[in-house]
């Protein structure tokens, strides 16, 4: 049986790859994680989980011994994304791995790609999003390594990968519950979605395909949904009508800047919970164990300011193009195995499982 190592096995895609490839019996799976603590999810299974940093060639080569294929689902900041490519490739070569499947992203074409874009389109590494540039640089680096190396490479460019544990489902639900959610121009733009099982299905095909070496594949769902189609059902599951959320113009997007620590604290449920006064009825209920109490003084409300519009979100939600994945269909035999609607149903089922207040 083929032995497939999954780098980043505790992440959203890596975890699902472990689940599907192991439970289906399709492969002998070896999860690899950066820290021992990250083995909590893959160790739900009786699997040989290894610890190795993707930047540590020696440790990684040891962890990859005996594997035929390695899937790089390493997440991180742009520096980590680019910095991990060479150690991973060289470690795979040191360990005698036959093929490296690299999870890139359709965002190498930008959050709102132009019409006519496909795998052969020229890539730009001076985009507004540092993540996009890192993925472009990582792909280029990988191509260089392949030219001088023995390990076959396959690059997969999935679009918006959604499903249980994804930012597009769990992260969106968190925003909704925190009161931070908004949409841009009605969220009517093209959503280049791919349900996570479809991506893992493609990974399985890429592991065995005879013509995939050195090739790059865009991947998506069969359907062509809008962002409303993705966000709406998740919001509805939590009892939120998408149409009552702030609907902001794309022109409001500013250069992205992360919220300050103080701002993050201000937005936290704890701070919000402590910001109120102490009404009289409460005092009646205080027992002898409470010597005294006081309210934390919350920061003053900022009047007249709505949510900050992220540039990434503005570009995503105003896109007009669904990327093609015909090459994957022809060369890998890829066809989505889960429909978009079924993917949403499974995602909502997971929300309830994870402890979200699902009302549907």
């Amino acid at each position: 049986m083929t032995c497939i190592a999954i780098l980043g096995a505790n992440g959203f895609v890596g975890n699902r790859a472990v689940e599907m490839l192991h439970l289906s019996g399709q492969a002998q799976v070896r999860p690899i994680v950066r820290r021992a603590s990250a083995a909590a999810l893959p160790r739900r299974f009786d699997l040989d989980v290894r610890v190795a940093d993707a930047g540590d060639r020696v440790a990684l080569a040891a962890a990859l011994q005996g594997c035929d294929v390695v899937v790089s689902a390493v997440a991180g900041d742009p520096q980590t994304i680019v910095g991990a490519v060479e150690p991973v490739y060289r470690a795979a070569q040191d360990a005698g791995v036959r093929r490296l499947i690299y999870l890139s992203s359709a965002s190498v074409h930008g959050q709102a790609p132009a019409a006519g874009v496909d795998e052969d389109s020229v890539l730009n590494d001076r985009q507004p999003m540092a993540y996009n540039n890192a993925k472009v640089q990582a792909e280029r680096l990988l191509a260089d390594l392949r030219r001088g190396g023995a390990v076959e490479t396959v690059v997969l460019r999935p679009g918006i990968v959604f499903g249980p544990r994804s930012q597009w489902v769990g992260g969106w639900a968190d925003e909704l519950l925190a009161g931070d959610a908004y949409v841009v121009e009605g969220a009517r733009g093209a959503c280049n979605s791919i349900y996570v099982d479809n991506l893992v299905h493609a990974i399985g095909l890429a592991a065995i395909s005879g013509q995939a070496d050195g090739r790059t594949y865009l991947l998506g769902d069969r359907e062509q949904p809008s962002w409303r189609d993705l966000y709406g059902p998740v919001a509805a599951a939590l009892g939120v009508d998408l149409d009552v959320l702030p609907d902001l113009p794309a022109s409001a997007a500013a250069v992205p800047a992360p919220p300050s620590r103080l701002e993050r604290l201000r937005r936290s449920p704890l701070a919000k919970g402590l910001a109120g006064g102490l009404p009289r009825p409460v005092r009646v209920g205080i027992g002898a164990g409470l010597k005294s109490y006081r309210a934390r003084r919350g920061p003053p409300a900022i009047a007249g300011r709505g949510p900050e519009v992220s540039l990434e979100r503005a570009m995503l939600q105003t896109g007009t193009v669904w990327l093609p994945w015909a090459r994957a269909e022809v060369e890998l035999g890829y066809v989505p195995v889960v429909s978009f609607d079924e993917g949403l149903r499974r995602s909502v089922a997971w929300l309830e499982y994870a402890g979200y207040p699902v009302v549907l």
Partner: protein
Amino acid sequence: MIRIGLSGCGAVSARYYAPALIALEAAGEARLVAVFDPDVAARQAICDRLPGARPCASYEELLDAGLDLVLVASPPRRHAEQVLAALARGLAVHCEKPLAMSGEEAATMIAAAQTAGRPLTEGLMRRQFPSVRAIADLLRRRAIGELMSVEVFEGGPFDWPVSSPGYFSRAESGGGVLRDLGPHVFDLLIGWLGEPQLVAYADDRRGGVEANARVELDFAGVPAKIRLSRDWARPNRFVFHGASGNIAWTPYETDRLELSLDGQSAALVLDGAGEFQDAFTAQLRAAIAGPGGAGRGAEPGLAALRLIDVCYGRRQPMAEPWIDAGVRP
């Protein structure tokens, strides 16, 4: 001054017990005199922070160091043998939670302590939180009316700095998230509400140890739903729903809780509660003082450990349709 020996120099010792021991030394209440861990660098690191302590190459050497009390913070599978060895030497023992790998093992250890006539305490430091005592007080006074139900969510992506993936095994840790968080969560609930009946237990292990668990308990007619996770972050909350209001508490908050009555909510902040770390110092003080302190002291949470065993014994798989529907063998 009480002479303490420390066995186990992992993360809990480095983060919490070492500062607690430093505080006790500064107060002239106790002194760390000997340290054992198979990892030479780890035991030396503790000795560097508490220069009066001597590194020991074996647990036996530690026990020979003229101690009054042994602090056992080794991996859970070592707890029983180390605790029993210390009690056999006539030493008092404070053991980090979980005391044992099973309720039966814990009962054996407690019986040994009684036979030896020496105190055995467990690191259930949340009992020391003023917020925990305040909840007990509010419930006893029926501040929210008749208690109707309880909901608990605790956990999130696991980030405790364990030394190897082997930690996530029954052999090493006795289980997964239930064995890890259950001693605290069950112990608190039992302290507040008495011993429950298990209604249902389910978890997500599939050949390994669970990262998610769901427990339904019945506290004399009051249903409690408990969700534990090493997987996904949700607000960590204990919520008590009463006929006329709610109490909500975030575990790890030593000094505050939220009370809702008659549709109005307020945060209650307790004076003089101290920080999270202070609870570790307080529990060591309780261990040194032995039984007889006010309220729940540091006696082992045997009922919680037994309840965990019952859960595992009646375990059902958690339904995860998004996993199984996507698998085509």
